């Protein structure tokens, strides 16, 4: 251990300039807080979903009907 210590001695400059090379690193995108939804927006989305569902159901029902008649 003692030998190693003698081999590598730390050097702390007491005077003069200390320069550090600035390495550009890649950046991560930042964590994202999710915005809360307003009541109006929630209601709109719910209504839209419901409307789409009813239309889809109806279309399915009509298709089935057509298949039966054919």
């Amino acid at each position, binding site marked *: 251990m003692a030998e190693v210590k003698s081999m590598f001695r730390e050097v702390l400059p007491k005077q003069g300039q200390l320069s550090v090379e*600035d390495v*550009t*690193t*890649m*950046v*991560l*995108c*930042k*964590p*994202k*807080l*999710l*915005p*809360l*939804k*307003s009541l*109006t*927006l929630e*209601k*709109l*989305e719910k*209504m*839209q*979903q419901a*409307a*789409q569902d*009813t*239309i889809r159901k*109806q279309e399915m029902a009509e298709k089935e009907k057509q298949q039966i008649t054919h």
Partner: protein
Amino acid sequence: MGREMEPLLLAWSYFRRRKFQLCADLCTQMLEKSPYDQEPDPELPVSQAAWILKARALTEMVYVDEIDVYQEGIAEMMLDENAIAQVPRPGTSLKLPGTNQTGGPSQAVRPVTQAGRPITGFLRPSTQSGRPGTMEQAIRTPRTAYTARPITSSSGRFVRLGTASMLTNPDGPFINLSRLNLTKYAQKPKLAKALFEYIFHHENDVKTALDLAALSTEHSQYKDWWWKVQIGKCYYRLGMYREAEKQFKSALKQQEMVDTFLYLAKVYISLDQPVTALNLFKQGLDKFPGEVTLLCGIARIYEEMNDMSSAAEYYKEVLKQDNTHVEAIACIGSNHFYSDQPEIALRFYRRLLQMGVYNCQLFNNLGLCCFYAQQYDMTLTSFERALSLAENEEEIADVWYNLGHVAVGIGDMNLAHQCFRLALVNNNNHAEAYNNLAVLEMRKGHLEQARALLQTASSLAPHLYEPHFNFATVSDKIGDLQRSYVAAKKSEAAFPDHVDTQHLIKQLKQHFAML
């Protein structure tokens, strides 16, 4: 139960208890029994009452507060000729975000939306309608999690809802609008108001609604402010902002109402005159001191103009008046989070939890705040709950994305890798996840994969500076200076104040000069 209740009373009771479908069904039965042909018979008051009640019930089913409704189609945005100045001075327009960034954290800390605004803590129907610069961007901007932007606002969400309700009704619509004798109804003010709301909200036939309103206001000899406001609403929906402004102003002269102030401010915001809207709100506050909706309106405008410190001030003012205002709490919370005070943000989000808000977004935010405030015990449980409460894949993707950050924070790169991958599985267009994955790949030394991921990220979200900058750095390292320069220029366009980008461009210019 023995004897049955009087049907009209029962229907009323349903209406008051907000069981609108039951109420409407009962009214339909009553109207079938009594002689009824399209319009109520004045001789039969009961059937008339049932008719109004049904119209009101149907309206209530699809009613949304018109003040919050703000929808812009692609046509309105790109062909907007209402804005007065095409090249407005800084600080006088909502179109140029970032021109007067005061007080808010920079883009390096707080992510931005596609329109270049810092992401907000609260989502309203209008929050996402920031005006994009190019047609391509306009088409790509999602309006909500579900749907793309409509071509024009007259083909938008409301019309689609209207068609759906018509399709589901086998006997056709309740009232056949083209057969209505509007003049007759305009003479019966009580009936006309219910009918107007039905036409406006349920049928979304703004032109007929406008006709009825015009006749009614004439009948009331222009003395009823309510009709003026309704005409203004119709004009607004039709995109005739200046006419709408006149109507609202005239209504305000007759009777000062908070609603009217809000509608008028909405007109000014559509005309891209935030300063006028601010002045109007302040006038309104003189008349109605401490009115929460007015204060909140001011805060929203400041937020849209990127003046975060003023916005926070007004949100605080809102909370002084109403300490359960979800929007104000959420916005202040996110503000604190992005200005490096996660502990305080955590308090605000905990307050929301106490108030009974219980959804994916809130738990995700709580998880992030806990992690950055070094309360590690709560972090993972919050995220777990957020995942279990998520309603669609986009939300799940966002939660996994944030979990990836936690993993990066604790140095578990494998977990982080998996988290970002999972985010991408749930939402294939998650640009931020692509970028972060690329950074992780670079650390492993997988250069080609990283480049491919970065290219995907930058094509998905050209408004983010990170993918451009990373691509520039990577290209610079392998000596592809031309591509590096192009990417760095894009990064500079997305975030002009980014020091590292400027540095890189300077270096590259030196290289080119030497050649």
